[in-house]
């Protein structure tokens, strides 16, 4: 989740109040952010992905002002008309179809605002923008721009002067030679032509989502801006545009509308900063939260979250255009709860009679775990993720089909275990410096491929014991199996054979009704050597689900 740096002085100025870090540290988390610690200039704050409007200090100040009662209700924004027009050409449909724009004037581009805007733009690109693929924002100096602006595509050999470059470059050069080009080339991979924003004179404003043109470079002297947002999803880019524009408006800028002409003849007027409306049933609020607010109380709480609510038969809530997270009345209920304060609710366990119980396999497994302790064995808990190296190679077992991940970050954790014994061997191999005997066991799941299930795999509960000491041998491990079976009144037939990790003639499979229940034996010296062990090991592994079945029948 994105973390923003907040300059305390900037925030104080925007709030018109000398708030302290102590106060903010206490209150901001209760508003729905995470305090990430003080810095020299202020503090770091984690903003949840559903509240991109808090990614700028201006947005944060706006929310904090109502939350703490410095301001009340909805802040309204005006949009002026000046006949700005842009054209979206049909060619962009297959590459990056959506384009919305705005003009803001009388911007005081001082340090705090520049810092805030750059930070917000970066964070929006990473989160909502999915690293610019879904959304890319361009800010331009309005002065040189001649309208109408056109959003179109250009072939790879098309040339212009990218931001920060002394000479023109063609698109291929930009994507292969420039740092930003290489970083974001993946967002335009496979395109025959590339998105391009040009003004009435054919000068390039931007090649979204890669880089702007030098033509509309912004500096401290810039007062008027042209803003574009391009992307793959109209809803998201509109929301992002609103978040940016309101940030400038909060700093005193005037907002102008632009008519975006789409190839199907439709005209999209942006930005649309009018609040949106949703109705909210007071009973819904109360039954969800377990409270008894009057409609007026609820309206008062909504005002603390920057909404205006009209009280009638239901609440008619006007919510700000930048609140992209409000999709359902439940989202407004949450705002009521936040305004009331999560720490002000009185927790209460309801009286709901339900049938309780553990899964029978878990009850059975716990019985086995406690029983094995009686043998003096130490229980271990090992990872389910492992590697073919451990499952097969070190065990001197042949490879078998197993569940494998496609994108592991760590070499040692690439697949799921299909057997417990290798995990026990790993524990023994890493405990050679401790005293012997080391008799250990584990009761847990393995994962086996099974085409009959929804995913093509299923888990199976297993029990494994490894006996490791100077005299560990076949008889001892067979005696352990005997005791388990005797105590569960299960009879099994033992026959030579089983797993190749055991010494031939000193291994067996215990079967019930012809189906294997348990595999056991003395671990081969080749396997011990592969684990770098110099102490004999005798081990067994059994199917607990089968055992449970036999016990309950």
């Amino acid at each position, binding site marked *: *989740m994105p973390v923003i740096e907040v300059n305390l002085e900037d925030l104080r100025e925007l709030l018109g109040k000398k708030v302290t870090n102590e106060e903010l540290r206490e209150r901001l*988390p*209760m508003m*729905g952010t*995470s305090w990430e610690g003080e810095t020299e200039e202020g503090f770091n704050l984690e903003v949840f992905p559903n509240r991109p409007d808090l990614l700028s200090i201006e947005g944060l100040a706006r929310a904090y002002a109502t939350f703490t009662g410095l301001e009340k209700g909805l802040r309204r924004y005006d949009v002026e008309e000046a006949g700005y027009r842009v054209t979206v050409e049909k060619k962009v449909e297959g590459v990056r179809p959506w384009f919305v724009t705005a003009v803001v004037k009388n911007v005081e581009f001082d340090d705090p605002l520049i810092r805030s805007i750059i930070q917000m733009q970066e964070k929006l690109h990473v*989160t909502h923008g*999915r690293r610019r693929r879904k959304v890319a924002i361009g800010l331009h100096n309005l002065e040189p721009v001649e309208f109408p602006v056109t959003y179109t595509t250009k072939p790879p050999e098309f040339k212009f002067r990218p931001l920060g470059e002394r000479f023109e470059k063609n698109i291929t050069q930009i994507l292969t030679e420039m740092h930003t080009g290489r970083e974001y080339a993946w967002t335009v991979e496979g395109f025959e032509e590339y998105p391009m924003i040009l003004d009435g004179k054919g000068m390039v404003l931007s090649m979204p989502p890669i880089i702007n043109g030098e033509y509309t470079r912004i500096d401290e002297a810039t007062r008027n801006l042209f803003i574009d947002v391009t992307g793959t*999803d109209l809803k998201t880019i509109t929301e992002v545009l609103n978040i940016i524009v309101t940030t400038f408006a909060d700093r005193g800028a005037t907002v102008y509308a632009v008519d975006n002409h789409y190839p199907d003849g439709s005209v999209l007027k942006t930005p649309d900063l009018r609040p949106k409306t949703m109705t909210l049933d007071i009973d819904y609020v109360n*039954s*969800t*939260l377990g*409270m008894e607010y009057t409609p007026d109380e609820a309206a008062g709480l909504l005002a603390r979250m920057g909404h205006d609510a009209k009280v009638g038969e239901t609440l008619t809530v006007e919510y700000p255009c930048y609140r992209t997270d409000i999709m*359902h009345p*439940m989202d407004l*209920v949450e705002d009521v*709860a936040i305004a009331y304060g999560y720490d002000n609710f009185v*927790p*209460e*366990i*309801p009286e*709901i*009679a*339900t049938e*309780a119980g553990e*899964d029978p*396999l*878990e009850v059975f497994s*716990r019985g086995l*775990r*406690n029983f094995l*302790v*009686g*043998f*003096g064995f*130490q*229980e271990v*808990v*090992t*990872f389910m*993720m492992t590697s073919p190296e451990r499952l097969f190679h070190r065990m001197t077992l042949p490879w078998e089909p197993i*569940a*494998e*991940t*496609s*994108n592991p*970050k760590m070499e040692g954790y690439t697949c*799921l275990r299909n057997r417990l014994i290798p995990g026990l061997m790993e524990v023994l191999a*890493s*405990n050679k410096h*401790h005293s012997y005997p*080391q008799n*250990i066991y584990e009761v847990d799941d393995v*994962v086996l491929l099974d*085409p009959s*299930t*929804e*995913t*093509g*795999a299923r*888990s199976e509960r297993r029990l494994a014991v490894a006996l490791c000491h100077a005299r560990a041998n076949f008889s001892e491990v067979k005696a352990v199996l005997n005791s388990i079976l005797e105590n569960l009144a299960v009879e099994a037939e033992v026959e030579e054979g089983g797993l190749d990790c055991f010494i031939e003639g000193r291994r067996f499979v215990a079967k019930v009704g012809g189906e294997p229940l348990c595999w056991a034996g003395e671990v081969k010296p080749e396997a011990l050597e592969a684990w770098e062990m110099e102490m004999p090991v005798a081990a067994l592994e059994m199917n607990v689900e089968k055992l449970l079945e036999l016990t309950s029948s």
Partner: protein
Amino acid sequence: MNPEDAAARLHENERKVLLTLEGRGAATTQELSAETGLARDAVEKASAWAETKGVVSFQEEVSRSFNLTEEGLKYAEDGLPEKKLLELVASGRNEISVLKEEFPSLNIALVWVRRNSWATIEKGRLTLTEEGLAAKDGETLDDALLTSLKRTSIDNPDEDSMARLDQFVRRNLVEESETVIRWVELTKAGRDLIPAVKRVKETRIITQITPEILQNGSWKGASFQGYDVTLPVPSLHPGKRHFISSIIDYIRRFWVELGFKEMTGDYLELSFWNFDALFQPQDHPARDLADTFYLKTPYKGRLPDDEMVENVRQTHENGWTTGSTGWQYKWDPEVSARNCLRTHTTSLSVNQIAKLSPDDLPGKFFSVGRVFRNETIDWNHLAEFYQTDGIVIGEGVTFRNMQGYLKAYLEGLGLKRFRFRPGFFPYTEMSMEAEVWIEERGEWMELFGAGMFRPEVVKPLLGVDVPVLAWGPGFDRLIMQSYGVDSIRQLYGNDLGLLRKARLWME
């Protein structure tokens, strides 16, 4: 304690030592060993015990001892090279070039001949000085020292010999070693105890009771060797449950006592259950390869073939009949059929809701199980860890109820100072974080998330919109704190030293 008892509590060997010391001053343990017939370490052990009882004083003296090395022994037999050189020169072979051919130790010899001023060198010839002549014929101090060392080691030498020995040590002819001499002497208390010790000696002492002694009745009339009960004995390593597994049992019992029923399910899960059913849009960052393990084998599964999947699709695309706007994108069943390792046990919770019909309500369910994150493993991160999920589903359950259950859970884990604050999860609304106050750090630590499932989650699965309280705490960090383990890797390291010493989880 009266003298008879005190004497009876002495070990047989202690009594031997005491009696041997009677009427004399200090004796070395070596001497005592010879006289008692006990091994020297047995004497030393007995003396140490006796010292703790105040009946002897026991002192150590470290002595330095010098012995010839192999090279030193050779010189002690053949003479030092510088002495040999004197003889060669005296016999007329005084040209260095000639000596070089005939005398392999020439270089060493020259060093010492010159240092002792036994000869002068001019134009490649050696001429003996008066001292040289004297040294040639007589026994030098070095010779004497070598001879003496050949006979026996020199212990604690005086200052004069020390300087010479140092030189030999540097020439690697002599090596130094330290020997410890232990002196034992009766204390006043020890002397007073002697008569009682003599009396004890006359009765038979039993150290270990054996079946034989019990069978033949020889214990009658004998007395038992008393032990120093404060002496340490080694611990045993009993069979034990792993503490993580004990805590999981505890958590399970906790939920059952609150009336919850267990839900179980698989580690491998369709993305549908892990993400889509939880209203996470298909381009949500949490679904990135960076956080989620996807499967190579089995690559994908089969979506449940019913209305529910269709409901989920529509809810993602336009909100369906949930009253939501939805995410406004085209939902892809292929993405949803992709297999992954569950990233949370919340996948079990939605699976459970899908299995319920409105007639089954209300219901309370819990799960405990492993979840997987595609992390780079370090002291703070693992690729798999445990989580316990809970849901309460039914008309009339409220946000305050959720706080009620979680308060009980946190108190059940022994936590005293905690708080709830707003959080964010794509599938809950209210979303809530539970935090615990960490006194040592002076700050709140996030423990886990909770919330009420969004209508967009519940309605497509159940067919109707009913409030569902849900939470999914991990508990590794709490175990780490409780067991004083500071690396999460250590927690799952199965170090037998740690497991054998780990405190039992007694709740």
